[in-house]
């Protein structure tokens, strides 16, 4: 134990690195590593201990076992799993894991039940796994088991639509360029080469999100409007350039506006100038439409033009 010889005094010497119990520190640092990361082998854990400036040494396997025993005695459930012949430690649950209140538990269960009614099951599974990693939820295992045992999900898709969804999800995983023939808002049939990224659900409609390598922009294509598709032999490169969309907000909108992720605000007195960094223009413009004449897209010119076109389209039909 490193002990600085703490003597009687009114106040302890705070925050001095040597004024601590180094053996306990090592053990608790190990706990910190396991609680933050999913897996660690003996070698990984030892490397992390060695890299810490206050520890700067490795420990024997026997000591490591002792540390893990101590953690187990304190209520940590640590599992040793074999992965490629290498034992890996996984902290299943522990006393400092985030607890949820009864109301929060019900809210999380309710949210998952809603997600289960939507067809993107991959996302539900990722979400369930993430929640399990984050917090201790009473009755979690029974709930999840019950959910995934359901053979029929009420997502309202017809069998051929489900098949189509699975086909596009597969394209996204395979990472090859895709040629699609697509009906746009003006009912024109366009051919595009895109790098498929993911299938998303928005307002009950399924969209293929993809990058257009020609224009380096992210675009969404409603699955229902894709007339034909074929995979091309080229691998995707995913070189997307994010662009900054600048828009002005006037009057009460300027006073009340709360920035969205990726936005910076500049108060110009008469108006508020918002700079929004994004790789996808459409959802932003859709949101800005509801601000009515209290919002004006300034730049880049293509964003301004697209907003103007959206307004014209609405004006023609309304």
């Amino acid at each position, binding site marked *: *134990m490193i002990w600085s010889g703490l003597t009687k005094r009114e106040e*302890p010497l705070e925050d001095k690195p040597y*004024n*601590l*119990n180094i*053996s*306990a*520190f090592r*053990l*608790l640092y190990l706990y*910190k590593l396991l609680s*933050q*990361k999913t897996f660690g082998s003996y070698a990984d854990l030892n490397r992390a201990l060695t890299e810490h400036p*206050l520890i700067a040494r490795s420990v024997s396997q*026997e000591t490591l*076992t*002792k*540390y893990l*025993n*101590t953690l187990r*005695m*304190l209520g940590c459930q640590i599992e040793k799993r074999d992965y490629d012949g290498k034992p890996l430690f996984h902290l299943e649950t*522990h006393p*400092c*894991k*985030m607890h949820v*209140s009864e*109301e*929060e538990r019900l*809210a999380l269960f*309710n949210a998952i039940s809603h*997600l289960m009614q939507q067809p*993107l099951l991959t*996302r539900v599974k990722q*979400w369930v796994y993430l929640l399990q*990693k*984050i917090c201790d939820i009473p009755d979690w295992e029974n709930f999840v088991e019950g959910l995934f045992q359901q053979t029929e999900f009420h997502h*309202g898709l017809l069998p051929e639509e489900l098949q189509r969804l699975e086909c596009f999800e597969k394209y996204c995983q395979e990472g090859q360029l895709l040629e699609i023939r697509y009906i746009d808002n003006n009912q024109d049939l366009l051919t595009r080469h895109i790098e498929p990224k993911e299938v*998303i659900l*928005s*307002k*009950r409609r399924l969209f293929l999100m993809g990058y257009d390598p020609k224009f380096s922009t992210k675009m969404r294509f409603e699955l*229902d409007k894709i007339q034909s598709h074929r995979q091309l032999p080229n691998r995707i490169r995913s070189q997307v350039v994010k662009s900054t969309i600048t828009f002005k907000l006037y009057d*009460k909108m300027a006073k009340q506006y709360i*920035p*969205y*992720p990726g936005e910076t605000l500049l108060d110009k007195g008469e108006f508020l100038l918002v700079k929004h960094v994004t790789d996808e223009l459409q959802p932003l413009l*859709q949101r800005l*439409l*509801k601000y*009515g*004449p209290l919002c*004006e897209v300034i730049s880049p010119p293509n964003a*301004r033009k697209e*907003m103007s076109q959206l*307004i014209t*389209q*609405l*004006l023609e039909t*309304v």
Partner: protein
Amino acid sequence: MKQGSFNQTAYRIFLLIQWLKEAALTYPQINERFLRHEKVKRAVSQDTLWLYINTLKQLGCEISRPSPSNQFTYRLKYHPFQVFLSDSDLQLMVGTLNQLDGQLDDMTYFYLCQWLKRLFENVSNSNRGSLLVDYFPKLANLNLNRIEQIVCELQPYCEAETLLQIYYRNDPGQEPQEMVVLPKNIFHYQGQFYLNALSTRHSDGSMLRLDKITDLHPLEDEGVLKELRDRKHQKTLVQVQILNCQLRHYTPLADEEMVTPDPDNPAHLLVQIQTENPFLVKQKLLASGYLFKVLAPKTLQTQLQSTLEEMKALYSV
């Protein structure tokens, strides 16, 4: 090594984290717990406790020291033994919550917000201070305690149809304005909680953001109460044709609505909405992403036309 051998000091420090996580404790209270614990059964000196606290601080714990202002207690403000959220975890959270947007009931949404706020306060990411603002800026601005408090106050008045005098601060720099309202219900919309009410000021219904209500009192005025109660039962029928949209892909715009395929053109939908707040319907239509035609009322169609013309004028130069 003996089976089950363990590190005594680390064991005691770990117990300390668990206790301080639940409550702020004084030095004697901590020692009382150590003495009672079957695997410890001994008190520690003040110096040893300082050593334990310093060890925890070096690990990243934030612990306030005893002082007269905190009744000489140690209080654990933060500990780093919680999950680290990677960028893909955060993206998944944002994506999932966007996917759930508008589908959750108010209670579920409220407690989901509460859980998220607590989570972001406690994650072990080094940038946890700005994480919520970066990924969920609206939530970062939401004062959930205040909202919970005001919901508790308002709920009985909504149920009893009580006339209320409300003080509402529209702009942060301004004095709250006085309003007389008949509260109807509380709801959430795009990350904010609102009171849906009828007021003597507006002919349409009012959407009052709960966090902007600074004070409220019940009011006795039979005349105004009768007038607003009569209006409560008056609803406007909005009829909209949603162009090129199939029924199963349509997301409802309001609670009380009827949707059918257009008998004249099955590629379109006919939507009928009973609302006391046509303004909200207008907002939702604009942000919906649908191409649409308002069939009734004429006033809403005219309002939308003039709004869109004003917008178009901004882009004519």
